[in-house]
């Protein structure tokens, strides 16, 4: 049996999270920086992400005390310690579960999850997919360095097959996850990928993610200089990145490759007869057939097809940007609405209702 949930119209963006008084002085990145010494390895990509987050959080205009970061275990999961917001550094893989309770309990919080490829996709894979399916209002930053860093260099669920690590001396025989494909398969409503070293892109994607109501998953390619250095060189190197990055911008043709005189790349995407997409030379096809990115379409099929253009092995090419951004009622909004609905129908004080609850059913009185 199913029932019409009768839930009122979905709320949007950060509705319910208290904003700063418009007259209040603008917050600064410094205010969001805690007094704790940052303890990542020199050159770690995490520094760049931290810096970007510290400087972009003030722009959200939300009250600092209404922001909460929850992380799991791993190098990136130390993140909350370095932000002067509320935070919990929890246990391995469980941050989305804890954040679900936090977000459901409190509409007035902006909830963030910081996790890594091992934390989110291996030990915590179950919680990740269920958060995405429920569409709980939280923003998940998935730092993907394709290696286990904190445990000193074992292969991760995003490491390429054949990878030689401490635990795979003959090469890994594991087939890796594509986090974007996984998130789209779980019907994530906001799925994006960005790069630690591209501050501008990172900030724009995080801003969009923060403004999205529901679960936002942002995969951040993040270099581990100690155990997996150079994993993303192809997309970071000035000489190769134009060929490696397939930029996704909503409403625009998907074009990449070394730009021509029109400023556009010579390569584009077209749909295949089998329902996927493939890379073509723009000059070889009818311009009308070139794929225009639509992140807002409800059907995730094309977004999934685009996600498959990511190399599973050593990374030479990957789509970057917002794959999907659609509206769907969030779990926490609906759960709260049910409680509100039930409370709206109540009469009497909570105390009286408790008395009638426990005093209900068949009773008898002894005098």
């Amino acid at each position, binding site marked *: 049996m199913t029932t019409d949930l009768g839930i009122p119209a979905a709320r949007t963006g950060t509705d319910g999270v208290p904003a700063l008084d418009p007259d209040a002085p603008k917050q600064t990145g410094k205010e969001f920086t805690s007094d704790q010494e940052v303890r990542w390895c020199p050159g770690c990509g995490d520094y760049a992400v931290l810096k970007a987050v510290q400087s972009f959080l003030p722009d959200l205009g939300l009250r600092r005390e209404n922001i909460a970061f929850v992380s799991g275990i791993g190098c990136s999961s130390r993140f909350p310690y370095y932000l002067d917001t*509320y935070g*919990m*550094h929890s246990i391995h893989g469980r941050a989305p*579960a*804890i954040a679900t309770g936090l977000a459901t309990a409190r509409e007035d919080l902006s909830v963030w999850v910081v996790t890594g490829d091992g934390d989110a996709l291996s030990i915590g894979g179950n919680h990740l997919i269920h958060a995405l399916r429920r569409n709980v209002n939280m923003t998940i930053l998935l730092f993907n360095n394709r290696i286990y860093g904190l445990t000193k260099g074992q292969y991760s669920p995003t490491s390429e097959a054949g990878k030689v690590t401490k635990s795979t001396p003959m090469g890994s025989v594991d087939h890796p996850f594509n986090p974007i494909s996984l998130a789209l398969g779980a019907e994530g409503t906001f799925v994006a990928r960005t790069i630690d070293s591209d501050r501008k892109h990172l900030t724009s994607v995080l801003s969009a993610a923060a403004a999205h109501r529901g679960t936002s998953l942002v995969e951040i390619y993040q270099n581990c200089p100690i155990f997996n250095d150079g994993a993303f060189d192809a997309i970071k190197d000035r000489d190769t990145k134009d060929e490696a990055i397939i930029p996704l911008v909503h409403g625009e043709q998907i074009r990449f490759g070394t730009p021509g005189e029109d400023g556009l790349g010579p390569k584009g995407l077209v749909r295949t007869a089998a329902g996927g997409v493939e890379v073509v030379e723009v000059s070889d096809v009818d311009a009308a057939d070139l794929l225009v990115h639509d992140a807002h379409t409800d059907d995730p099929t094309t977004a999934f097809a685009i996600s498959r253009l990511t190399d599973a092995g050593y990374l030479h090419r990957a789509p970057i940007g917002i794959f999907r951004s659609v509206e769907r009622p969030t779990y926490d909004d609906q759960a709260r609405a049910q409680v509100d609905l039930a409370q709206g129908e109540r009469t009497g004080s909570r105390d009286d209702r408790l008395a009638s609850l426990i005093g209900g059913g068949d009773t008898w009185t002894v005098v």
Partner: protein
Amino acid sequence: MASAKQVKQLDRVIVRFAGDSGDGMQLTGDRFTSESASFGNDLSTLPNFPAEIRAPQGTLHGVSSFQVHFADHDILTPGDAPDVLVAMNPAALRANLGDLPKGATIIVDTHDFTARNLTKAGYTDNPLDGDDLAEYQVHPVDLTGMTVAAVKEFGLSRKDAARAKNMFALGLVSWMYGRPTEGTEEFLAKRFAKVPDIRDANITAFRTGWNFGETTEAFVVSYEVKPAPMAPGTYRNITGNLALAYGLVAAGVQSGLPVFLGSYPITPASDVLHELSKHKDLGVTTYQAEDEIAGVGAALGASFAGHLGVTTTSGPGLALKSETIGLAVMTELPLLVVDVQRGGPSTGLPTKTEQADLLQAMYGRNGESPVPVVAPQSPGDCFDAALEAARIAITYRTPVLLLSDGMIANGSEPWRIPETDDLPAIDPAFATGPNEGDAFMPYLRDAETLARPWAVPGTAGLEHRIGGLEKGDGHGNISYDPANHDFMVRTRQAKVDRVADSLPPLEVDDPTGEAKVLVVGWGSTYGPIGAACRRVRRAGGHVAQVHLRHLNPFPKDLGEILARYDKVLVPEMNLGQLSTLLRAKYLVDAIGYNHVRGLPLKAAELAEAIGELVASADGVELDLSGAGHVTRDADPSGPATPVTQEATR
């Protein structure tokens, strides 16, 4: 005519309804219980059903039963041995016959005693034909046939018509014991309101069963069990899981906190989730998580948010939640973890009872990870135990383990409904501002309780980070300092130990003050232990009883009480978990009495064990064999059958 029949007085009766899983025996038992409760008897129930939803029909695996013990006086257990067995098929007879004392009454549905069903139950010959049942008072009745005939007018299929046979049986047994019938008729009218034919068939079957008892020559006597004297108040019959759910709702009201339940379905705890999901109007949010770990994780997240975070589970689920409970120990957030224990290890006996998770609750985490442990002693007591667990969790900022078990979860008893004004207030005492000059120190402790401040997100100026890494004293930042770790480990232990300061003195039941033997119990063994002690006392023995609600920390006077007695006996439905704890802490030579049969301890057997100990301690001989000589027998193993057990009062 009723007047033509003899009415005999009884002080107590144990009835067991047994049938196939699909025969509606749980509903039948439940209704009989409600009738007895509204009549004013004291009662105690024992549902017993297989883990399979519909095991193969007619087999021993599929037998489901419900035992009701009702009396004109205060009783403590659902009873060891039924005086009356209602067996709906051969398998139900075979599975339960071993529990019956000689002379017991057996009502069988002859309709189901077909060759095929007999074979399925493992009978080569029909036991109703030979002398196998000669020692019992057997009433072969075609319950199904008479039901089908009685409901013919409603035009149901034969299958649907036959399904009402449990109500026929209920009507018959209700007549035998003069139970009030209005409640059951109202119940049926409501339950089947949308299917009038089924409703009318059930009500008709129920009435026909009653009338059959009244008119047939087969039953010459009916019985009366008078209401039991009870303390003034308003009562209802309640199961442990329902009382536990109400206790959690009450904890939310008394603390002013919204309740957040994160849970994953598991037998026998799921009913708490079901019940709480109905009480959103009282500020309860229920979240059915993707797994046990997510259930407790979300609850902890809600606790961080300032709600009363609760998770409910059974033993296997508790194992999965261990790491998160450890995180709650480290982050020092209130969290209620309810473990409705079942038979283990592993999947074990999902629908049967056991109390073998005590050591898991105490020690089932990595590191020094102390957690207060609280246990209810009866179905109704689950309400108070839940409130107490919440008090400790909120006051001391700690996860608390609440250990119920399958017996009290599904069993029921009359419960005096408390006045809400009498319930304890629980003060969450949220942090609202800096606690050291202008600074906020998240691990600065209350001098009395050693609890840290609970500062919830949204409170300006108190932004702070918590987590699983070791905390520096006071400031709460990550600390790897050896001396700090040693201090914090000891402080977390000391905080849990401080809970003992808030506990009332133990109540030792030692009526003569001459006992040399002390029986110590915890949890659902309260009933069997109490009943067994009464038996020993009636036989002239001196025995003392103390029952522990708090397993960690132990009440402060426990050591002194243990030292007062020559012998300490610890009956448990495990291999000696409390006795291990008592031995370790108090160096007392605790003697175990241990059964792990998935069933409650039998009071008569336990009384023998206590009696032997009392006899040797006091150098006397105790004869416990003649329990029948006491009319007001509080345990179930009294006279063989109610037919001969007429009250002398």
